[in-house]
Structures are given as structure tokens and as C-alpha cells.
């Protein structure tokens, strides 16, 4: 009955898409996306120059938009079978997100930003052994955010720190899928590699699959799989 909260068979893929197509209101030719099949716990690098619809694909995977054609199957659940509210709840329960920048709610402290998914999802709350604050502080220490900043407004942090807080928010409550939209584009080379390593290590600990979008080919070697958008033909 409850599709989104039913235990998902571990054999189902984390992400499985089939002939996805999407058209923005004023577009004549729809965007077509290659099929994705990602096992649980594995990471995918999605590469593509801008304008190839990376963000559109992420919106479809996150269930924030529905495709014009094709299907998205996450953890054995067909997204199109869920209503708007159920898709939002599915996202809260099973997905962590990291944006390019401006990841954090400006009026919440770093800690409150990290625990936000646990307040929107009972499942994520339970996955932290019902101690979201402890889980959040553990993640923040692992991501080497100085303790003095935990209760400070996030606007006082550097961009690198903000991105790491966002990573902690994506990881908390061990969601099965983490969607990251060029999270390192605002970081320098050294920070970038450190960020990706930390993210993937922690994702491994939490059994999460990471879908990482970037135009930077040099990052691909960190991931199990890679897929290019736009330049196939």
C-alpha cells in the first residue's frame, strides 16, 4: 500500500531510467537522456557541458519534475506512480542533495541545516538512531568543520565549509541516493579532491549511491561509472 515507505528489495537498483525525455515549455526538440542503471552503493559520474540538461536530469531524478516520456525507477519505486506530495516525501526519505552553491538555509545554524532532513523525514530521523544532533555533530567533525561554527549562522562560513555542511546534510540519516550538482565548482583544486574523497568515503560508510554531476572530466576517476550527456552523437 505505502509504496514510498515499503521496504525495498535490495536487489532493485538505486536508479534505473528508461528513455527519459523532457521538454521545457518553449522547447521544440525534447531533451533525450541516456539510460541510467546504477546499483546500490555505487557511484556515478555524470559529465556534460552546460546546456546539455544536467540540471533537468537531476530534477527528473529527484522527482521534482516528471518526464515527458520514459520512466524513472528509484529503489524499485516508479516515480510516476507517486503523487506530488508523495514524491516530496520520497525525496526527503531517500535522497540527499548538494547544490553548486547556496546550499544552506541562511537563518539556520550549521547544525540545524544538517538535521533539516531528519525533521522532514521520520525515516531519516530513525536512521540516526533517533539522535539527529549526535549524528550531525559526528558528520561535521568528520568533514572537519570547526566546532565553534556549529551553532553559528552559516553566513559566517567560507564556501568550502558551506559545501561540506551541505554534504553532511545530504549524508545524514543514510539516504540511499545522493544527488550532487557540481558541488565542487566553487572550490579550488586541492579542496575539490579532498571534498570528493570525503564525500565518497562517507557515502560508502552510509551505503549511499552518489550521482555526481560535473563538467570537469578530471574528476571521473573517483567513480565506479561515468556517463556523458550531450556528446554521444
Amino acid at each position: 500500500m505505502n509504496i514510498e515507505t515499503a521496504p525495498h528489495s535490495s536487489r532493485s537498483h538505486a536508479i534505473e531510467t528508461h528513455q527519459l525525455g523532457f521538454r521545457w515549455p518553449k522547447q521544440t526538440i525534447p531533451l533525450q537522456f541516456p539510460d541510467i542503471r546504477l546499483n546500490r552503493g555505487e557511484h556515478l559520474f555524470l559529465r556534460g557541458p552546460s546546456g546539455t540538461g544536467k540540471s533537468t536530469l537531476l530534477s527528473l531524478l529527484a522527482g521534482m519534475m516528471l518526464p515527458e516520456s520514459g520512466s524513472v525507477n528509484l529503489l524499485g519505486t516508479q516515480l510516476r506512480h507517486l503523487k506530488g506530495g508523495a514524491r516530496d516525501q520520497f525525496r526527503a526519505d531517500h535522497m540527499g542533495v548538494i547544490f553548486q552553491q547556496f546550499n544552506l538555509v541562511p537563518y539556520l545554524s550549521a547544525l540545524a541545516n544538517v538535521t533539516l532532513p531528519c525533521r522532514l523525514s521520520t525515516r531519516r530521523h530513525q536512521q540516526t538512531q533517533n539522535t539527529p544532533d549526535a549524528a550531525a555533530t559526528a558528520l561535521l567533525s568528520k568533514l572537519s568543520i570547526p566546532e565553534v561554527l556549529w551553532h553559528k549562522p552559516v553566513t559566517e562560513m567560507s564556501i568550502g565549509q558551506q559545501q561540506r555542511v551541505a554534504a553532511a546534510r545530504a549524508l545524514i540519516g543514510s539516504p540511499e541516493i545522493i544527488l550532487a550538482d557540481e558541488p565542487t565548482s566553487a572550490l579550488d583544486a586541492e579542496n575539490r579532491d579532498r571534498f570528493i574523497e570525503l564525500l565518497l568515503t562517507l557515502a560508502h560508510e552510509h551505503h549511499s549511491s552518489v550521482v555526481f554531476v560535473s563538467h570537469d572530466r578530471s574528476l571521473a576517476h573517483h567513480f565506479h561509472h561515468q556517463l556523458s550527456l550531450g556528446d554521444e552523437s
Partner: protein
Amino acid sequence: MNSFRLTLSLATASLWYRRRVLALVCLTLTLSVTLLLGIQYLRTEVRQSFTSTISGTDLIVGARSGQLNLLLYTVFHIGDATNNIRWSSFNDIKDDPRVDWAVPISLGDSYQGYRVVSTNDQFLEQFQYGDDQKLALARGQWFSQLFDVTLGADVARQLQHELGDQIVLSHGGGRTSFSNHTDLPFRVSGILETTGTPVDQAVYISLEAMEAMHVGWESGVAIPGRTLSAQTAEARSFTPDAITAMLLGLKNPIMTFQLQRELSQYAAEPLSAILPGVALSELWRMMGQFEQALLGISVFVVATSLIGLVAVLLTIQAQRQREVAILRAVGASPRLVAGLYSLECVLLALASCGLSLLLGASAISALSPWLLQHYGIHIGARSLNADEWLLLGLVPVVAFAISLIPAWHHWRKSRKQSFGSSAQD
């Protein structure tokens, strides 16, 4: 419920984060709500003190005139009588078996702009105001000697009179009179307690003193040689020919209408008898128009500031794109985002209501002694009545209703929210 708690905590954090901008909006709203509440409060207070100007009196009798005119000059000291009542009529009515008590009142003179009411000791005993409260003396005695005067509380306060002061009454009304009763000064024998009614704004002398003062004034001015000196006046006894009006208390109030009808058809001279309560409410109906308009205006002021609030929230909305994108991406529903907006608006309105209660209460407690001292208006702090709570409660309700505009806007927009920082890719 859980989602409500989340929305509430987000809304409070968000309001606090934007406190500098919102403080001004909140201030505007607070001031306008204070105005609205203040006007409603004063309305109630004024009405209360207005309708409690006189009580316990069953009929007011004067020369034939309209009931408002009779009420105004006997109770409020506004305007003049059309004619007098003969002293014989007063005695006749006083001796009617249905009449319990009768207080004669004679008007016409003034003291520094305050009315001189000449009456007898029945006035002190029978006149009642408010919840059947009787008059009492703050200091001294009710007049007993011929040239004694008892002052209303405001008169004593304004002119800083003490017991034993000598004062000179003027002939006719008005603050500056050219004909004064200089040769017959009065001595202040007593000062009444504050009542918050027109009683405070008058001075009281005996009917005999009124007669004595006017010997030799039959033509309207003093004719030299015909007026009395204090010594000769005290040696004589005076009986008034006429009075201006009388207050009647009946043994059985059921007889009021019967007696009123009889007095209106009084054979000896044309009289009018009015029921003070009926006349007061008619007078209030006339003045009520004005305060209704005032209340209407203040409602518009509140509406304006609520619209201003929404305008500010809509402006802030543009800066909140990113925040909405984040909330949506971590799984918040469009409903939660819209709810955040409505709740912020309601919380602001509630804060304004709370602040305006504080502001109103401190304004009343700060201004109340000053008002009493300078204007003789008694505005006490009291808890709000049902109407006022209703009015106050309507503010957050209306705030919620108009917050639906930005909330709906947000709801629609965030439904179309795509993944990422901007609404559109």
C-alpha cells in the same frame, strides 16, 4: 503536527533573521493596532462615563422644551433653559404622593466659565451617578451659610481654590463676564470628590443666595442703591420665585410614565418631564455617528498596514528563491513552503498585537493621571471586554487571510521548482 512544528520553528528563525526589515513593518502594524484598540477602548470608556452621568433620577422636569435641550442644560451644563418653573409648581410637584424626593436647580450665573448651580442640600443627598454612587465631599462642608459655595472637583483643581477662599460670581454665563457680583463675595465651604461627570465642572450655592445676589438686578444689570450688602442680605430671608428645573425621584418607578404624562399636561404652566436614561441614549445615538466614523478610519489604518506587510513580504520573496530551492530539494512540500509564509505573517501580526497591548496599557497608565489633572477625564486601566478582544483577535485572522496571497504565489511557484538554486534552469 510535526510538520507544523517544523514550519513554526523555521518561521520564527526566518523572522528573527530578517528582524531589521521586519521591525519597521511590525512597528507600523503595532501603531495602527494600538490606534484601533485605543479608539475602541476610549469609545467604551466614554460611553460608560457618558451613560453614568446621572443615575437614580427618575424624571427631570423643566419648562416646555425638547428632551435633549432639557438634558443638556440640567445635566451637562450646555445651553440655556427656555423658561423657568414657578416655585409654587415645584412645591406642588414635590408634595405629590408618588414623589419620593425633589431637587430644585436654578441656573444662570457662572464663575470663571463654570456654571453656578443653585440648589439645596437635597442635591448632595439625592444626586447619583455611575452605579448609584452618591456625591461626597473631599474637604469641608456642603454650603450652610447664605454666602457659602461648594466647588466641583475640577473647579477647585483648575483654579487652585482651597477652603475659605473668597470668590466672586459673575452674572450670566461665559468665562469673561462684565457684570460681576463683586459686592457679594462667597466663601468656599467645601470641595466635592471627583466624579468624572459634569458635577465636577460646576459650583454650588443655595437657592437663597441666588435670590439675594439678584436683588436689584431685575433689569439685567445692577442698579446702584437697590442691591443688597452682605449684612442686610443675611438679615433677610429669601424665597425663590422660580427655578430652572428639578430632579425627581419616585417612590415606585412604575409610576414614572404616568407622572411624566401628567406633568406634560400640567395645568398651571407648560412643563416637560423627561426620563434621563432615554434622553441620554438618544444623545449618545447622535454622538455615536462620530465615534463610528473614527473606528471606521482606524480599521482602514490597520488594513493599510496589513497591506504594507504583505507588500514587504512579497518583496522579500524575491530574495528567498534560494532558500525555497533548498527546502524543496530536501523534501519540503509546496504546502510547507506556503505555510511558512502564512505563519510568518500571522506571527508578525501576533507580535504586533502583543506589543500594542503593552503600548496601550503603558500609555493609559502614563497618561491617566495627566488626563485627570488637566482635563478631568477619568480613563482607568481595565481588562479588555469581549468586543475589544474580538477586534484584537481579528487582526491575526485578517493577517492570515491576506497572507494567503504571497503563500499561494509561493505554492504555485515552488510546485514548478526544479533542482538547483534557481527556479528556472
